């Protein structure tokens, strides 16, 4: 049975439903049941973790144990108008940043039956989308008519450019090892058990994992490398004019960017959605495709959230870095390490096939 028929069956659609309709339903479902709930869930986890670290209580009023607080925040922000002079910034952020978001959803690796669309450069496409997202922030900074947006834009530009080379080099190295950039190429070489993950394939993979994660955080300018949107010296930087519902959408985009990056990292290094103990084979043999899909989705989301929470944890105990320190780290530490990974993995692969 092909992917299209399986999804058609999954959504209880009649046989022979057109490809585009199934794709449309798929995209809507990914948004409504995966990305948006992930955003709410992660916001809650992040705020609770931050509160625990800082000896506070955190959200505890809205819904049971404050679980609905992120949803309440979204609803509140959507009702608020943005500031009137901010339309160039908002336009750039929403059009380009949002555009980048929409392009990647069909390619998201969320289980063995997804992505709906298969392409040879699948791993690189979300990376490019991330770059477009970063570019939208730089443009938003330079489009703004205030000095704080300009300086914020310049800072973000320097930072994301410096993080680009190590990110792409590492991805190239792991792509060379598995022999392609399709999701399936990365999935096939990995197992569900811990030591079957790609990160343990060669001594250079853990290094590549660290470089890729760090450069992702730099590329998106997440805390503690968020000198482009600081309040003490830049009064908010690029985001100084973004408010109301634009801010709500912007937060969602930023979450999506980091989530996407963590998802790629999990697929490339941390065993993707592979279930251990041969569970996949058992479920497939029983034709329990829905159970299989949901288990795989839960596994990969759990890994992604864990990665994001670890990054958030680190950001809670590290002070904000100055932009020149971030770019220094990227050029002088991450880039040489990424090149070492590339050379090491290539030689390892060459020796294996001697």
């Amino acid at each position, binding site marked *: 049975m092909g992917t299209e028929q399986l999804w058609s069956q999954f959504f209880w659609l009649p046989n022979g439903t057109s490809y585009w309709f199934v794709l449309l339903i798929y995209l809507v479902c990914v948004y409504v049941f995966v990305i948006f709930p992930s955003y709410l869930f992660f916001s809650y986890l992040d705020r609770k973790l931050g509160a625990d670290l*800082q000896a506070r209580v955190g959200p505890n009023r809205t819904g049971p144990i404050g679980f609905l607080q992120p949803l309440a925040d979204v609803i509140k922000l959507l009702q608020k108008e943005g500031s009137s002079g901010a339309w160039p910034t908002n336009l750039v952020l929403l059009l380009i940043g949002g555009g980048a978001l929409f392009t990647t959803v069909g390619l998201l690796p969320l289980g063995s039956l997804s992505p709906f669309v298969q392409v040879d450069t699948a791993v690189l496409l979300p990376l490019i989308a991330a770059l477009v997202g970063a570019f939208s922030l730089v443009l938003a900074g330079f489009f703004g008519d205030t000095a704080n947006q300009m*300086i914020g834009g310049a800072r973000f530009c320097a930072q994301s450019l410096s993080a680009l080379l190590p990110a792409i080099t590492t991805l190239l190295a792991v792509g060379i090892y598995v022999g392609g950039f399709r999701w399936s190429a990365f999935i096939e070489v990995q197992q569900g058990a811990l030591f079957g993950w790609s990160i343990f394939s060669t001594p250079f993979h853990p290094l590549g994992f660290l470089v890729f994660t760090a450069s992702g955080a730099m590329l998106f300018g997440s805390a503690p490398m968020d000198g482009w949107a600081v309040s*003490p010296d830049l009064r908010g930087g690029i985001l100084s004019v973004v408010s109301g519902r634009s801010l709500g959408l912007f937060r969602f985009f930023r979450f999506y960017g980091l989530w996407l990056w963590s998802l790629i990292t999990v697929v490339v290094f941390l065993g993707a959605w592979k279930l251990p103990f041969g569970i996949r084979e058992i479920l497939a043999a029983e034709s329990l495709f829905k159970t299989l899909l949901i288990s795989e989705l839960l596994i990969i989301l759990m890994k992604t959230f864990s990665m994001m929470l670890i990054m958030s944890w680190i950001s809670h*105990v590290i*002070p904000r*870095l100055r932009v*020149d320190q971030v770019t220094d780290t990227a050029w002088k530490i991450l880039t040489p390490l990424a090149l070492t990974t590339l050379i090491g993995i290539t030689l390892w692969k060459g020796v294996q096939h001697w």
Partner: protein
Amino acid sequence: MSSEQDSPSYWVIGPYQSGLPGPIRFCLELDGELVVRCKVQTGFLHRGLEKACELHAWDSVIPYVDHVDPEAAIFPELAYCLCVEELTQSPAPARAQAGRILLCELSRISAHIANMARLADIVELRTIYHFLLRDREKILDLFELITGARFSLRFLRPGGLAFDVTDGFIERVLDTCDLIQARLKEYNDLFTFNHSLLKRTSFVGVLPQALAQAAGVTGPCARASGLAFDVRRSHPYSGYDAVDVTVPVGTGEFGALGDCHDRVLTRLREISASIDIIKEVSARVPGGPFRIGDGGKIESISSGEAYCRVESPRGLLGCYLASTGKDRPARIQFCPPSFTLLEVFLKMVGGNYLSDVLIILNSLDLCVSEVDR
């Protein structure tokens, strides 16, 4: 050709902005991200405080002098009370002096913790920020217990204290000191020796010893630059002559002598030294009266003038007081440490990154209400 000549850009910090110690405006001229020069505008907090003091009776001045430095209000109170006592030639009894030392050292710890919390806020270290404020609350609780207020204490009186220390106060002070002593290790692990914080504060905002000496900088900033001057030791007042005061001095162990990190370290060590002083004084709080007389209104003070200085958390705080024999001061003037610190800040800040400006400003622990008055 430097880009400065092509297009200098201007950047204004303040008057109301997160990370500033109070309402003050800095106009920076930037070359890219580097600060070329800095100008300051003050006066946003000017209240005519010294003139207001001259309109009130000798006792009623206390709530006004509190606002010279609201964060460590006990020090201007003490400076004023010492001046009045010098004019009336009636020093406070020993029990009052011990109480004053306890309150001063607790205030010093509180002010230093608040300064570190502001630094944590500027570098977005919210975790340690909350920890620091949580511990400072314990000290403010002690203030509330003895004085009824958390910030503007209004507790000292010419000739002693407003009230005697309550039962169990000393024990609670010692408990809090033990707690903070234990927490200092936590601060060090999370904050002081955090690698990233070292990168943000080492070699940044170096205050050379020569400049500190020439400008007359005192307090932790001068000590961090290697000048071991402390009024409590060089010109003891209010019973400090009987106390062993340790004066920590910066050594530049993680960067250059007198950089921002040295000032953070010096303040941390001063917290430790203050705890030692509190323990020493608590062990021998003498009995007897806690003030001279019944605390009634001072009708008049014979003509004369007095000048006293105390070691506030920011440095030497001087108070000049003149009397013409009336029921109120003829002239009262404070010589605050922050004024000098503001002057050296303007000299130091050139050549630093825009991101570091507020870190440097905070490390000097400038108090805007002292500057403006």
